[in-house]
């Protein structure tokens, strides 16, 4: 997955890129419309994150030209404007979604995921481990003749395990990935979701193993 972030506030852009990098996404930065135009001409991005107020113009104009040129890359608008009419107008102009600053990164991720899923996805979302094919875009787990649909939290948990099989992930790390800052949950809450994922993996060539006192890891049977 390769994203383009068009945002003139350099600190925010930097922080967002760092945040994306933590989850293993590659994000290119553009600080104005001109460099954004150059970037989309040279690289095929999977998704564009677009700010509205930019030093050399209005992000909505970029949106319009992009759609007029039959640009297929989905766009999520990052807006600091709170007027509902503004938000509706970006959707009318062809944005796939919008998110209001400041936002919960998990929500941005969820919106990106939803937009990419609507887009149909480009087969490179599949990850393989043992006899399992995990498609994070479709939210499915396949092994043998078996296809399991995953709920959102199961999917996000599996994303972590599939990103680095055999690696031990601490409970707190997994919790940070699954729960929002608004939720006060105990460490045991993660066990519920690990339990569910184990059920879905039953019969496959992989399993989630508890490493006592540390966390969990995905290993081959």
């Amino acid at each position, binding site marked *: 997955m390769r994203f383009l972030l068009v945002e003139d506030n350099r600190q925010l852009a930097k922080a967002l890129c760092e945040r994306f990098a933590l989850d293993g996404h590659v994000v290119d930065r553009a600080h104005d419309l001109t460099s954004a135009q150059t970037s989309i001409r040279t690289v095929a991005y999977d998704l564009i994150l677009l700010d509205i107020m930019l030093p050399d113009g209005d992000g909505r104009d970029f949106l319009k030209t992009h759609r007029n040129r039959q640009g297929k890359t989905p766009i999520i608008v990052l807006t600091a404007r709170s007027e509902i009419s503004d938000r509706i107008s970006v959707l009318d102009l062809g944005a796939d979604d919008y998110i209001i600053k400041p936002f919960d990164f998990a*929500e941005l991720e969820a919106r990106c995921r939803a937009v990419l899923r609507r887009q149909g996805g480009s087969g490179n979302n599949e990850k393989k481990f043992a006899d399992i094919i995990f498609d994070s875009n479709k939210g499915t787990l396949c092994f043998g003749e078996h296809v399991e649909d995953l709920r959102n939290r199961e999917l996000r948990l599996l994303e972590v395990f599939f990103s680095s099989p055999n690696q031990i992930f601490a409970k707190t790390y997994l919790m940070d990935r699954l729960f929002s800052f608004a939720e006060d949950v105990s460490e045991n809450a993660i066990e519920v979701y690990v339990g569910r994922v184990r059920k879905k993996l039953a019969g496959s060539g992989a399993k989630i193993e508890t490493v006592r006192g540390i966390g969990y890891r995905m290993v081959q049977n």
Partner: protein
Amino acid sequence: MELGQKRRSIRWRLVIQLSIIAAVMSLAFFLAVRAVAEQAAADTQDDILAASATSIADALYSERGEVRLELPYSALSMLGTISEDQVFYRIVANDVTLTGYDDLAIPAAQDHSRTPVFSTTTYRGAEVRTVAMSRAVSTGNLAQDVTVVVAQTRLGLAATSSRITSSATAVAVGFFLVATLLSLFAAQSAVTPLNRLTKSVTRRGPNDLRPVVSEIPSELVPLVDALNGFLARLRASLTRSEEFIVEAAHRIRTPLATVRTQAEVVYRQMEKPKNKRSVREMIRAVDESSRSAGQLLEHAMVSLRTDQLDTQEIDLVDLMGDICERVRPTCDLKDIHLNLDLCAQPAKILGDPILLQSAVHNILDNAIKYSPADSTITLSLEKGDSYRMTFSDQGRGFGGADPANLVHRFTRGANVSDIIGSGLGLTIADEVVRAHNGYLEIKQNKEGIGACVSLVLPVS
């Protein structure tokens, strides 16, 4: 009320003024016609009386020194041509009544005048018109003055005069009525451009601040110019405040976004639970302040718009569907299932789409916020006498707080201090539905857990 009494319509003022003029003119017309006609009738009588007297005088002759008279029949019959009035006559020679009614008074006239003298007197209880005429009749060596007096009652004249009066009255009344009717039309056409101007201004939506360009008579040009000037100033002022809000929001939200994202990065890299807790509190504070700012701005917008709704035809099914699509990613994060139970046919109402979106979004946002993970939020739209949009969740409900109080500003449930909120969501929804003549219904769920909020809007 006082203002209402002072408000007099230009149209009625014009009608009343024109009617008064018409009445005065009708009266003048009536008086003039009557005076002329009566004068003409009186002159006719006088002429015939004079002719009668003259023909009597012409019939005087002298015989053996005495004045004699062969009263010509025509002299009296000609008086009968104008009416059936009684005729009296008296011929006096040297103060001796020659013939006729000797009590008929002789008008005090200059004896030597040869011109007829007219007077109006009373004779035998009736008003009479009298003509007296002197004639010298030669009786041999000296001429004798003979006075011929002819009188006629005026009943015929009175009848003629009353006939003339009634037709003059009829004509005057007719004239007045026609003039009043025409003044109504005139007043109507005089205020038509005003009405057109009023319509073109009142028909506008609340956001239409374009200058008025309807065709207007020159008298209204200063008013319309003033109105357009006012509109331009209002537009400029609104644009300024809108720009200010947008700019303010941008300037507050962008740094908050930076803080929040950086805090998240730091949080992920931290090891010590104590430090993590602190950063977590920081992130929550950012969320709280941005949410409050957002809700306050939204509440301000809603209050502004509810004064003048920008009404359009909206399909509530589409509206709810769109908002569900919009919040689905947020629901997914908590594995919340959205259960939509919408009626199949379109539910069209006239309303302000921005406001209704805001109301529905706020209610749904609350439901998601207070719902636990792996729960279901049921949205239904029923059509009865009115449209009822119901949102029921499996959250914590209101913890004994009186649901009716929750629509008040900054009032929140008794059990939600751990969840970020501004206490404005239900207030916004309540103001929106009330502006659409609907109402908000808040209660605990039937199953005992969770909240159930209904937006009820009349079918328009």
